[in-house]
């Protein structure tokens, strides 16, 4: 039994440095992305993460066209594109009657179109496609440093803006009335969203990194009844999905990014049925009600 566990769970990480790096990258990504995703869910912006993951594409492509397969260039490009889309969408929402989700949809589609044009104009470059869909097994020191830094910055920033951000999610009118500068926290938060998507794209790809952000966060509501509990649950689920996904991809020789997201998705499906906070099964096992 011990042998079996070692063989399937520990050996890949003990024996191969690239697996250890990938694991560290996944854990760091989980630490940063999961809480950001949770705030997206609580602010009813679940699809904004998806929009932003498309929005960073042209920036990464421009980075690639200028500097080739350079992580700093592509990350910086992706970050700039993401911030531009978030900024324009925010301004459009603030100064017109267009709702936030509609603004994001409009600007990310624009950004995506430019991105696809840029990618296709650079020819069918295998390296570029590789990076767009990620390869967590190929993270080098630079990528690891980026992921770890982003996770640190995210956690520190969230610790600072936690109170106003939560209050702004809960009761924006109140925060505005008491002079709480709601939009400052909102913009800072959007910056964190972009940062985390960019940090995830070398490991998981632009399209998959949003999965590690959203799926654990959505699951967490089914497992915890407080914001603190949800933050913990989201991180644990993301970390488990990361580790499990790596092992799965190692043993059955499948791409790691989709494996990680697939596991997170499966966990969500299972949670729908068995999770204690509003899962289907606990609801079916009708417990007797309390006295008035």
């Amino acid at each position: 039994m011990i042998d079996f566990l070692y063989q399937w769970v520990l050996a890949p990480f003990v024996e191969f440095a690239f697996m250890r790096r990938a694991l560290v990258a996944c854990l760091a990504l989980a630490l940063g992305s999961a809480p950001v995703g949770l705030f997206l869910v609580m602010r009813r912006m679940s699809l904004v993460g998806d929009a932003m993951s498309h929005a960073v594409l042209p920036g990464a492509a421009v980075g690639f066209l200028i500097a080739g397969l350079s992580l700093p260039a592509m990350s910086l490009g992706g970050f700039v594109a993401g911030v531009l889309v978030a900024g324009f969408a925010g301004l459009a929402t603030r100064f017109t009657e267009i709702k936030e989700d509609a603004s994001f949809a409009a600007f990310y589609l624009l950004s995506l179109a430019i991105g696809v044009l840029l990618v296709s104009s650079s020819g069918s470059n295998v390296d570029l496609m590789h990076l767009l869909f990620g390869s967590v097994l190929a993270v080098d020191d630079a990528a690891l440093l980026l992921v770890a830094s982003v996770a640190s910055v995210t956690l520190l920033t969230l610790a600072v803006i936690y109170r106003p951000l939560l209050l702004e999610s809960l009761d924006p009118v109140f925060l505005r009335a008491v002079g709480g500068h709601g939009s400052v926290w909102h913009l800072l938060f959007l910056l964190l969203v972009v940062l985390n998507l960019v940090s995830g794209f070398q490991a998981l790809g632009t399209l998959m990194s949003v999965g590690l952000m959203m799926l654990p966060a959505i699951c967490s509501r089914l497992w915890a009844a407080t914001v603190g509990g949800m933050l913990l649950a989201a991180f644990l689920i993301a970390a488990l999905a990361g580790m499990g996904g790596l092992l799965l991809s190692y043993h059955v020789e499948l791409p790691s990014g989709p494996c990680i997201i697939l596991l997170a998705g499966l966990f969500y499906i299972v949670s729908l049925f068995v999770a204690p906070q509003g899962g289907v099964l606990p609801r079916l096992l009708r417990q007797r009600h309390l006295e008035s």
Partner: protein
Amino acid sequence: MIRLENLTVSYRRHPAVHHVSGSFADGQATAIFGPNGAGKSTLLKAIMGALKPDAGRVLMRGVARRDMAYLPQQSEIDRSLPVSVIDLVSSGHWQRSGLFGKVGRNDDDASWNALVTVGLEDFATRPIAALSSGQFQRVLFARILVQDAPLILLDEPFNAVDAATTADLLALVERWKTEGRTVIAVLHDEQQVREHFPQTLLMAREVIAWGDTAEVLTADKLRRASDTAAHWSANAPVCRVDGVTP
């Protein structure tokens, strides 16, 4: 002290508050009364600072914006979030605690006492999703108690609230009056205004009458308010009034 000077606020050029001037009595309870669409909520939002005037201004002396407690007509609180009743009440400490400030034991006591005052201490740890709309309104009043603000703005606070709850919450308004707080409330119930609000601003986009409630809520002036409301037109010409009307 709050003074309105020729205040006009409009939505897409249509004025909701039209050349309103006057002062709210300090330390007193004023009701804002008038027909639907008379600009009552808009006026409250302009005082609160959420809407920018087209013309004129709101002058505040001795009250900073942070000295206000504001209760919107329909709260935009997302009640599906996993937040407990006591936590929501405690958010009323924001003006003093801010970003990092500690919410200490005294503050916790204040939150708890506020909940006791509105009669919901048994619900302290329940999620806000579990409350009825009347209970929820009590919680929002508890938060106003915690805010301890000298100026309290209430926008139709007794909508969708049963008689017993309304009576309890009106008792709080009475308490604020004796504590010398300025209360400005948009109300629909004439009886409530007569019984609890010594001052009334009767408006129909413009001021119809403003002063002692007994002198404002006369049959004659109420009719003038509804007549004015009946003659609003979608194709009004551009307004030529400018400058401060006394």
